[in-house]
């Protein structure tokens, strides 16, 4: 998570700041909202209150004038988290492509993947996952060739 990347929300000349949301937090919010649609607005309010980086009174005053802004702010925070994840994944893919010939970097990526325990994945962990996926794919490919050879020998 990059420090300083906050969401600023403006309305009627007032501005509020919100902390960046991790992919795990965004996922938990979306799941909570889907689990109880009748309380979706209350879920939005709770989520927005948790992410507000300022005085609670300021948020309360803001939302008393524009209550439905809570839903829009929550959606913007989730969009921001998704955009950061896409960016992190793109960095991970670039890192994986560059490390394809470098055994040291491959090892580093695999160790990062092994150490990954949830939350926002760092670029090295994404690269490690892609290496493993590539090996599995190659292994499947090799196995299919092996099966084809065995079948061909069986027909003879």
């Amino acid at each position, binding site marked *: 998570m990059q420090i300083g990347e906050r969401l600023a929300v403006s309305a009627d000349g007032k501005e509020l*700041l919100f902390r960046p949301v991790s992919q795990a937090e965004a996922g938990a919010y979306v799941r909570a909202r889907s689990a109880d649609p009748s309380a979706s607005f209350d879920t939005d309010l709770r989520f927005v209150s948790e992410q507000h980086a300022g005085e609670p009174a300021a948020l309360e005053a803001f939302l008393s004038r524009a209550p*439905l802004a809570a839903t829009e702010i929550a959606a913007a925070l989730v969009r921001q988290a998704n955009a950061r994840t896409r960016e992190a994944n793109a960095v991970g893919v670039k890192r994986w492509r560059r490390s394809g010939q470098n055994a040291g970097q491959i090892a580093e990526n695999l160790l990062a993947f092994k150490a990954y325990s949830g939350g926002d994945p760092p670029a090295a962990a994404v690269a490690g996952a892609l290496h493993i996926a590539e090996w599995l794919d190659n292994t499947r490919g090799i196995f299919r060739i092996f099966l084809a050879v065995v079948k061909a020998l069986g027909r003879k």
Partner: protein
Amino acid sequence: MLSWRMADLDTQLETLKSKHGRLVVAEVNGHTFAFRPLDLAKVSEFKRNLSKSPELAVELSVNVCKFLCIFGQENLDSVVQSCPLAFAGGAEAGVIDVLLENARGGVTFRTI
């Protein structure tokens, strides 16, 4: 007489506006109504009820309008009976739609 009544109406609305902030003023069937803004508690209650009983959308919307009406209440019930969709909305926006739109606050976002 008509201009005096209109001036009196404007004065009353200005007084209400200074007390409640932004108002939604609607003229339906020749009657003028003014509605105060939706607050957090009312929005939460409305959304919850609407989610639980979407088939009662018109009744719920009309109830919210009745709750928020601060001018013209004496004619509201009869006008609601004859023109419910002016308040609940439908193919065209009603009072509830304007109230909800105002409750969004016209927020803008930027990343800093």
